[in-house]
């Protein structure tokens, strides 16, 4: 058994500033297995992978790969050793052809910097033909799924012993996901070991042999997939404080605030739903399911094809963001850095950004109002700052997000849309944001929560809607005991039937 182990990780520690990203993590991988690495955002999966692949250096601990101490200092060295990573963000050159991309990523095929396309190798050619990918097609003409396949083919071409998939399925279609499983099995048959990171638990039952759960940088357990069910894994991933993490849900059903019917636009079609006062409505779906497009359109960022929206039974005509805001809609954007924070402006200016007109009289901004409103929010949301005049870049991600949230609190919206409200922020701030959102709901605000983290959706929402390819696929009340299964399959475009999915042949 001992010589069957390809990778052995012992007592790895890594910290960034004050946060311990990995705390004494140990793990062993068998040769030729598919090993799922599980955990919530911030559990340390990515950090661990980055250390194995040479992107980050470890603080302490050792990695033994194929019986020898592995000490890679950069991804290049890791590749040479036979460790490759396929990231969710692709690293292809869009204007080059498939073959050129594969060769360019492979030192072995470049002689005097001249690419030899004939050296691609059978394995690579097999995979590309399996997916009917034209070798000479420029990569930019391929779909995102096919691009991912090219990326994988590139890794395979480099004498790969350990292949790490970092959330490969997030951007793939159902068909492509099934094909990916096929590739993984082929690779496994060829003796390649695979580490598979995913947020979608149902996936691992289809492909993985074993799974390791990390939580808050600590090793929790390694399990044989055959011996466990999804529930057990979720419990391990979330730990015991699931009940404490998410606030109590509301019970009352109140009047309808917003009604959307047969609403279509760029990225979504024929959407109908209602949201009530004091309700938190979750929107689950994969990347590209059209959730963000739907709500940015409702918010007036893009133009819809139809305008069937009713706010308190009155037809709402939103032509620009300002109209939506005046109607009482707030929107916390998905990408904080790109669309939320004014990095080089100070905390005051950021806090009042959505209410500039309200704190002005005869066109002049009232300094005292700005100050008082900001201070009120800083206390209410417990935002950690040094000086109120500091620029936003001096704050941590969690505190920045709180400022953006404070901005919308000041606007006292009737409906607040929060898109990935806790992405990239620490657990403490997460907890506080959950409490705050529920408090707002209890005070009557209708809240729409869009999140790619299903536990967050289930933990926060009173009702959940699953979107798939631009349409609503399922709508489930959170009191339904099978809500997780129904939504979990809904986001994949599958109608839930209460039976375990058969593994794909």
């Amino acid at each position, binding site marked *: 058994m001992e010589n069957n182990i390809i990778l052995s990780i012992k007592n790895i520690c890594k910290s960034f500033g004050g946060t311990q990203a990995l705390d004494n993590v140990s793990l062993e991988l068998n040769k030729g297995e598919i090993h799922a690495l599980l955990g919530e955002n911030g559990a340390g999966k990515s950090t661990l992978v980055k250390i194995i692949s040479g992107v980050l250096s470890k603080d302490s601990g050792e990695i033994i790969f194929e019986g020898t101490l592995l000490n890679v200092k950069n991804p290049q060295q890791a590749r040479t050793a036979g460790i490759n990573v396929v990231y969710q963000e692709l690293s292809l050159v869009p204007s080059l052809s498939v073959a050129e991309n594969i060769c360019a990523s492979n030192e072995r095929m470049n002689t005097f910097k001249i690419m030899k396309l004939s050296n691609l190798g059978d394995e690579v050619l097999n995979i590309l033909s399996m997916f009917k990918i034209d070798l000479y097609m420029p990569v930019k003409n391929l779909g995102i799924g096919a691009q991912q396949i090219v990326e994988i083919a590139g890794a395979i071409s480099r004498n790969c012993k350990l292949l790490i998939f970092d959330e490969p399925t997030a951007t793939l279609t159902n068909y492509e996901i099934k094909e990916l499983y096929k590739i993984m099995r082929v690779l496994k048959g060829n003796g390649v070991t695979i580490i598979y990171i995913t947020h979608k638990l149902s996936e691992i039952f289809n492909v993985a042999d074993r799974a390791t759960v990390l939580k808050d940088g600590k090793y929790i357990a390694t399990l044989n997939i055959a011996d466990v069910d999804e529930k057990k894994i979720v419990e391990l991933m979330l730990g015991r404080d699931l009940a404490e993490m998410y606030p109590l849900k509301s019970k009352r059903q109140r009047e309808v605030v917003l009604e959307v019917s047969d609403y279509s636009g760029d990225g979504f079609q024929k959407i109908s739903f209602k949201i009530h006062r004091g309700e938190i409505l979750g929107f689950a779906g994969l990347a590209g399911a059209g959730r963000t497009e739907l709500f940015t359109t409702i*918010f007036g*960022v893009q133009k819809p094809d139809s305008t069937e929206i009713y706010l308190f039974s009155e037809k709402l005509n939103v032509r*620009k*963001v*300002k109209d*939506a*805001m005046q109607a009482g809609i707030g*929107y916390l*954007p998905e990408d904080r850095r*790109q*669309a*939320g*924070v*004014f*990095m*080089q*402006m100070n905390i005051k*200016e950021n806090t009042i*950004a*959505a209410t*500039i*007109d309200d704190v*002005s009289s005869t*066109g*002049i*901004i009232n*300094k*005292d109002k700005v*100050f*008082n409103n900001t*201070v009120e929010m*800083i*206390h209410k949301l417990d935002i950690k*700052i*040094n*000086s*109120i*005049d*500091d*620029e936003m*870049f001096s704050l941590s991600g969690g505190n920045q997000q709180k400022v953006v949230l404070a*901005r919308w609190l000041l606007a006292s919206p009737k409906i607040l849309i929060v898109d990935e409200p806790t992405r990239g922020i620490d657990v403490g701030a997460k907890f506080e944001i959950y409490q705050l959102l529920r408090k707002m709901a209890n005070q009557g605000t209708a809240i729409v929560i869009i999140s790619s983290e299903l536990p967050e959706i289930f933990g926060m929402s009173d009702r959940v809607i699953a979107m798939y390819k631009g349409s609503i696929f399922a709508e489930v009340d959170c009191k339904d005991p099978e809500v997780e299964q129904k939504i979990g399959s809904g986001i994949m475009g599958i109608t839930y039937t209460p039976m375990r999915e058969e593994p794909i042949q």
Partner: protein
Amino acid sequence: MKDSKNERRQKNVKSNNLLQTILRRREPILILFLIIIAIVLQIASGYKFLNPDNLLVMADRKAPEAIVTIGITYLLITKDFDLSVASVMALSGMVCAWLISQDISLILALICGIVAGSLIGFFNGLLVAKFKIASFIATLGTMYIARSITQIIARGKPISNMPEEFISIGTYTIFGIPWYFIFLIVVVTILQFLLKKQKTMSKLFYIGTNEKAAQMVGINTAKLRWIMFIVSAAIASFAGLILTAKSYSASPIAFEKLELKYIAACVIGGASVSGGQGSIIGSVLGFLLVVLIGNAMTLIGISPYWEGVVFGSVLGIAAIADALSQKRKSG
């Protein structure tokens, strides 16, 4: 004021004190440089520089140009850029002069001059804010177009023989001080005061810092950027008219290449081509610094060929200062 101070202490929230606020600004450094140059000039000129007559001559010549930097500053704040200002100045002067030569009333001719210049700004805004063309390219195009139209109207020759009432625009004084110098001081004071306090002007900073985020808080970014192009062109047209009157004639090659000097003055004054920064007073002081450096070199007797070296170096230093502060901010 006392109330809010008490409140601050009560609520235990720190604000920056006056010193911290001053240290973050560009203007104090500029004033320091200006004082140093003024002293150098005073000594080099044998104590003739700082006398009212000399200063008045400078104010008379340069105040109309300083006005142009105001519009450019607004554009730099919203992360835009206008290369067409100098062409616009020439165009408005030429349109006005030509209409006067066609016996059209002075007031109407002046209005037409400003409208003609503002139209160029309108097209700049259309191209940049609406069609999302990079402002460098869009205004480079309109720079050539406006200059070419000026030459078409002029048929290649300057229009002179301006009537006395038009010339008086460039010579009218209040208590011996050129009216447009007083105008400059008043306007700069008001606009500087309003810059971060007036809600629409404060929105310009949001746009320049992060346009996407500005959109998401309900700021109509395209509209405001468009308006600022028109404002910048209108200001340039206004200055163009004064300068045309001052030179007694409208020349098709007037003000050529001055646009870059104005943009440089704004950057020296603390505005940044990466947006979200700049002040009206800073830009005017930056322009004053550029003017004084030229003046000082002449007085000290350095060959005018060296002016570009000195001017370019000052711009370089300002750009480095900006880059350093950007680096601090992204880190």
